[in-house]
């Protein structure tokens, strides 16, 4: 029963939460830059307007792949909230990301293809840490309860204290690649929010109207899912872990916005090397030590 509630809750509420988060993001960013910023609900107005606009299309297949992207992102979050297997969840996430790459590539557009290539480098950068996060939870549950599990229900129910206690390194590593996944500077190399830059709008260059709206909505779903993964580090079998998780997620979100506003975009090789280094140093060593003890 809780499974079905979780799935429905995610599908229904995630876009609202994601839109709101996006509004808050824009507001905070504006304040950090000394502007007033748009209303909190601005992202919803934007999407509504996009949905009413004409779609400029290069290739019919764009529509198929964009829908695939959205459906798989929603599926990722739904599986997560339904308490499925965390490894499976991450595999579906990767599949979704791949559809975005294909969507951008098949236009044969210079800027979209550049964005797609860079998106692939982003995937290359974050994928090891994402998988290692799943491994981290498995090892942590094995450490605290004796039997490791990838099952999300069991990860939460069998942990007497937040798993972040066992996984500080993995948490740091995940926060690092979260910047890539949330498309925040300095790692926003595949897509920019401002069309006057060297790659125009990267992967989304050739999206318009309703398709762009789909992109925005997918992004909302994805952001909510990612923050839920952050909360998984905190939530355990105790009531106080839930308010604590809310605080930690809010802090992580704020941190990402702060980083976004205080750093300039780096080259792809810096991102790749640093992400892999962080994965090896923080993630792998954390898992290794936990297995040794």
């Amino acid at each position, binding site marked *: 029963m809780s499974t079905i509630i979780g799935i429905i809750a995610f599908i229904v509420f995630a876009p609202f939460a994601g839109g709101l988060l996006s509004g808050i993001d824009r507001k905070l960013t504006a304040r950090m830059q000394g502007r007033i910023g748009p209303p909190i609900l601005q992202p919803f107005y934007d999407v509504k307007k996009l949905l009413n606009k004409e779609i400029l299309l290069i290739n019919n297949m764009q529509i198929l792949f964009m829908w695939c992207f959205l459906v798989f992102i929603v599926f990722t979050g739904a599986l997560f909230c339904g308490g499925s297997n965390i490894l499976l969840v991450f595999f579906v996430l990767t*599949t979704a990301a791949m559809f975005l790459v294909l969507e951008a590539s098949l236009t*044969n557009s210079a800027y979209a293809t550049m964005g797609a290539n860079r998106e692939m480098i982003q995937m290359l950068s974050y994928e090891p840490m994402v998988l290692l996060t799943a*491994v981290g939870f498995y090892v942590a549950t094995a450490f605290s309860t004796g039997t490791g599990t990838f099952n999300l229900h069991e990860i939460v129910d069998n942990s007497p204290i937040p798993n972040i206690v066992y996984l500080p390194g993995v948490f740091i590593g995940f926060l690092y690649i979260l910047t890539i996944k949330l498309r925040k500077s300095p790692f926003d190399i595949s897509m920019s929010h401002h069309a006057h830059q060297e790659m125009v709008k990267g992967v989304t*260059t050739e999206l318009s109207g309703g398709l762009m709206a789909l992109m925005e909505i997918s992004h909302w779903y994805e952001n909510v899912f990612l923050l839920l993964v952050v909360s998984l580090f905190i939530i355990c079998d105790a009531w106080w872990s839930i308010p604590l998780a809310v605080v930690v997620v809010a802090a992580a979100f704020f941190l990402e916005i702060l980083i976004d506003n205080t750093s300039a975009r780096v080259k792809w090789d810096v991102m790749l090397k640093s992400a892999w280094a962080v994965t090896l140093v923080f993630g792998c060593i954390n898992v290794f030590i936990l297995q040794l003890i």
Partner: protein
Amino acid sequence: MEFIEFLILFPFLIAGVLAVTQNNTARKTIVYLSGGIIIAAAIALAVSQLVLGSGNAKTWRGEESLIHIVDYAMLAVEAFLMVLVVILSIKHRKYYAGLLSVIGTVLVGWFELSGRAVKGTANLYCDRLTVVMCLVIAVIGSLICMYAVGYMHDYHHHHTEYKDRRTFFFPMLFVFLGAMFGLVTSSNLIWIYFFWEITSISSFLLIGYTRTKEAVNNSFRALWMNLLGGLGFAAAIVLAGMRLNVGTLQELVSYSDKALILVPVILLAFAAITKSAQMPFSRWLLGAMVAPTPTSALLHSATMVKAGVYLLLRLAPVMGGELSGTMVSVIGGFTFLIASMLAITVSDGKKVLAYSTISNLGLITACAGVGSPDTVWAGVLLLMFHAVSKSMLFQAVGSFENATGSRNIEDMHGLMRSYPRLAIIMVIGIAGMFLAPFGMLISKWAALKAFVDAKNIFLVVSIVFGSATTMLYWTKWLAKILICKADTHKVTHKTPGSEWTSLFTHAALMIVLCVSLPISSKRLIEPLLSQLYSKTVSVLSVEDLIIMVIMMFMIFVVPAVAGLFVHKIKVKPVITYMSGINNGDDRRFIGSFGERKLQYLSNWYMVDYFGEKRIWKPAVYVATALIVIFISLAISTLTGGVI
């Protein structure tokens, strides 16, 4: 058992017939018919074993007088092959290959003739793993032979510089199949060795088909590496026979004292590592692509490299947790990672496939090395998926090459428009290889879980990084195919019907494999594991499998449903954005000097990071050091008073 004997002998018989068949039409008929018969026989074997029989393992010893003749016949063939290799190696001044062949053959010959050979309880053996292997070899192998009929016709049409030696080529393909059937159905170690050496030498002959300098060099590289492995095999046979009085593979794996069988097992594993082209022996498989495509397809999918992992999977139950298992899993994990990085840096389609084969076999090897039921489950599944999809992709690239004269992935830019049928085949093949939730996903999943349980952080690191690099090289290939660009010209070349027959059958097989995954896992693979481990094994929960089927369903259904509504969505067709300098379509633009230019979009290859120049040599050194250390450690237990 009659099906097994038939499967071993029939291909050799057909090889003999094909050797004297000059007529193209007659050859085509023979290949088609015998291919069909082989497939039918394998299916009959599967039905008689799994459906009509109980699926229990069956052994077969044979009449003493008959076996005696067979043994001598095998010795004679081995001696003949040795002489052949020696002559060829003297002719091409590659003396080391001849030397290796002589040592191996003389060692086994002496062992047998001096009466030291152990009479095992069985010569042939058939359990569920045998059946699975037979099905893979029969179905994929026969389809490749059928494909070869049309392909070789085209090949000699395009490559008039090479001598048409089809009366040699086709018999060798069938010899290969016969040897593979013998290899997977034998229990007697000496018999397995016999077939093992036949595959080594026939792959050597097939790789050297064109007789160019490069082909000869590469074929000798394949030969010496595999003969070196064969030497390990021979040493393992002699050791197992003389010290443990064990003569069959099954007795070896069920031997009670694991410490005593360590050295024979590690030597067999070494042989398997060379055969499966694991680091540091990967070079031979890369060199093998100079041969016509059917050879590559055969070596990479149904035969040769699969012989290596088959042996490893057989040994898996005794390798888990032992020194041998550690060696195999470390080499496998290392190869998985390194080969997937190298695959990023090359644009030659066949080379990408070669690296991906090495990489995937690395994963299977690692699975076998860990040796838990979960990983072996993953290994068997991976083996099946890999066989179908790799055979299909090689054939697709081969057809592409015959049609356009190039096998470069950059030239596949926009294949979806220029040659849609072939593009769809490739997409299915690639999806079957890596896209969630197909083969790679589940096996990676099971492997990752088992590696974590085994507390092997090195393997975990290999998997997490290796799966990222694997995803990159497949995704960029997929993207290249799917691109739709303006003014694409349709490929006018007509691909022969025999190639399509094989390609479409493969595609259908791939889809059937995917869809039937939950059933085949429950009905076929889990009982297979129970047989290997002599206990009940259950791997993935039903819920997880159902989720995977749902995902697979979505991959097909979401695009289909969206496709139904696409034409109802109001869209305005435009050309791509090019900062306003487009010149007519999405490919031409006005350069800064006002001249018309053609835009070209290339994939990324990251040669500076993962290039062969940068990582190949260190990787070979590391892998060689690892193997030397592990085998020395194992051998030191021999002198350390264990025996």
